[in-house]
């Protein structure tokens, strides 16, 4: 008499079902690999990006990022907004460097209308653009340490980013979402005493960069964990459309700020350098961003010194109607190349807006670059590629 004979039919079937489930689990365990979910809520993902990785022991067989947890449909919403209203939406794409999101859209609208902002507005735009870059990149410079177990740098980053945010707030009225750019110029001029204050803050940011140099870049653990990890050759980087520091860290010397001379911004009036690194690994991506932050402070200092006098708005009609046409304008945003393809039908609002956001391309390389790496390096590589979820999901 077996155990199974004494029990009821219901228990019997439950037992058999349990046996079958166990068998299935055993098959699963014997199979090669294990599936691991990273995210959607993971501190390394800067938002809600889920990454499904298939592991063989500690090694990644394949990785599949699953975006879309925060998709807001901006491209559709832009079609039912008027031109001045679009900036409110696009502010929220890369929320750490919001002002930089507005600029390419406004430039595209201005290009279609055939107008250009006056020189003073161009200078202030560029200064605020670079400030958005500082607010964005300083957080990366500290945050990269957190992913490697160094907690201190991120506190320094938050401390010094605060000064930059205060500057942005005192000029625009918004810490994170300035909504300050207008078709044809800017909403307001700079407040009194702002320039002197800005120069003080630039000194602080440069000090912060030096601190990161000594705290992280020179650190042995940091170097071991990042050098030679997540290498992206330049040809692959171009194939995937990697941009910004990710592209320059792979040795491609291309910066839209320097090379795209047609756009009406003031970078061409400042003396600064585009940094590249030949290695293409996590370390070089960090290093290039660190150098860029220093260059950014230099750009701001020089532009504030040479700030021309004059109006901050060109003459535009009270009701903005953009003539029929198409325009694509891209700028070098904190996260990489951001562009807007604007199609106008001569209406009050755009007919179609395609938003080319940097992080979308930057993170689409994840399946390629994560193949074969170890689990702890997944986090390092993702952190060094540096994405903002709003910039992927739009």
């Amino acid at each position, binding site marked *: 008499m077996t155990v199974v004979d004494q029990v009821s039919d219901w228990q019997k079937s439950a037992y058999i079902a349990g046996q079958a489930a166990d068998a299935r689990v055993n098959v699963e365990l014997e199979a090669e690999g294990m599936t691991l979910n990273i995210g959607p809520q993971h501190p390394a993902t800067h938002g809600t990006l889920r990454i499904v990785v298939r592991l063989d022991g500690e090694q990644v067989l394949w990785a599949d990022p699953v975006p879309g947890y925060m998709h807001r449909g901006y491209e559709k919403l832009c079609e039912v907004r008027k031109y001045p209203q679009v900036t409110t939406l696009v502010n929220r794409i890369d929320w750490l460097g919001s002002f930089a999101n507005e600029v390419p859209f406004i430039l595209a609208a201005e290009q279609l209308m055939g107008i250009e902002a006056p020189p003073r507005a161009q200078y202030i735009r560029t200064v605020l653009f670079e400030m958005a870059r500082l607010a964005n990149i300083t957080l990366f410079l500290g945050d990269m340490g957190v992913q490697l177990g160094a907690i201190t740098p991120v506190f320094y980053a938050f401390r010094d980013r605060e000064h930059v945010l205060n500057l942005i707030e005192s000029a625009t009225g918004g810490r994170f979402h300035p909504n300050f750019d207008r078709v044809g110029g800017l909403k307001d001029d700079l407040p009194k005493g702002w320039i002197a204050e800005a120069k003080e803050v630039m000194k602080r940011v440069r000090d912060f960069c030096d601190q990161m140099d000594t705290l992280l870049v020179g650190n042995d653990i940091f170097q071991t964990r990042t050098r030679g990890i997540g290498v992206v050759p330049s040809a692959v980087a171009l194939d*995937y459309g990697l941009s910004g520091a990710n592209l320059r860290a792979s040795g491609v010397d291309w910066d839209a700020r320097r090379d795209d001379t047609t756009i009406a911004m003031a970078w061409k009036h400042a003396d600064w350098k585009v940094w590249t690194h030949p290695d293409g690994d996590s370390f070089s991506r960090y290093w290039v961003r660190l150098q860029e932050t220093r260059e950014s402070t230099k750009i701001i200092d020089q532009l504030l010194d040479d700030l021309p006098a004059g109006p901050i708005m060109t003459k535009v009609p009270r009701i903005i109607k953009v003539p029929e046409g198409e325009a694509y304008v891209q700028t070098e945003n904190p996260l990489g190349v951001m562009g807007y393809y604007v199609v106008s039908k001569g209406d009050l609002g755009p007919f179609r807006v395609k938003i*080319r956001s940097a992080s979308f391309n930057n993170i689409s390389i994840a399946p390629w670059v994560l193949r074969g790496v170890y689990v702890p390096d997944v986090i390092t590589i993702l952190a060094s590629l540096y994405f903002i979820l709003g910039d992927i999901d739009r």
Partner: protein
Amino acid sequence: MSDTPTETEDAPDAPDAPEAAVEEEVAAVESDPAREAVLAQLTSAFGEAVLASHIAKGDLWVRVANDKWADIVGFCKETLGFRFFSFLAGLDWLNNTNLSGEKLWDADAEATEPLPMVAGYAGGDTRFQVMCRLHNVETNIGITLKVDLADEAPSVPTITEVFAGADWHERETWEMYGFLFDGHAGLRHLYLPGAFEGFPLRKDFPLLAREIKPWPGLVDKEPMPGEDADEDEEVPAE
């Protein structure tokens, strides 16, 4: 489509240059030798497959034949040096009166007849198009390639063989427009949940928020004090 290379007649400032003879006229209107050289190379390599083109404001648009799409993108990358893949996206030229014109901004406005469908730069014969933006990082020239898609079962060859980065862009365009990319290894949803019905970026997809509630941004219908006087000269003639 591909057998009608010269039928497109754009506005006077949007000349087509499928043949070498027309290109000379382009040069007379606006001189942009770098982009004209790119266009000339494309035309000499693919001939009739280059349907139309447009050069203006330091930018280049080229519309190509559907069946040669992947070849031309590959040629741009390998031979012309457009190695930086910027983006790939869809276009829908349908005019939806609920999503354009006065009706969008003012619920009380008279509903107008839908305007005739007009494609943008470099023309177009069909409602749907796919565009792809490439950039040459050495010469710093950008190019927008466009391709027409059939109205029924729109499809175009995939370019993931040329640019691996096009994978996500094609997945996004597939779910937002319902375009098929022939040869794409896995057209899975990228943003939308798996059970989502419809193609949100098509012009006939209703935006529910606008259907149930008129545009809330239209609040200041009354002129502000002192604005009446100068309104006439500031507002452009409609």
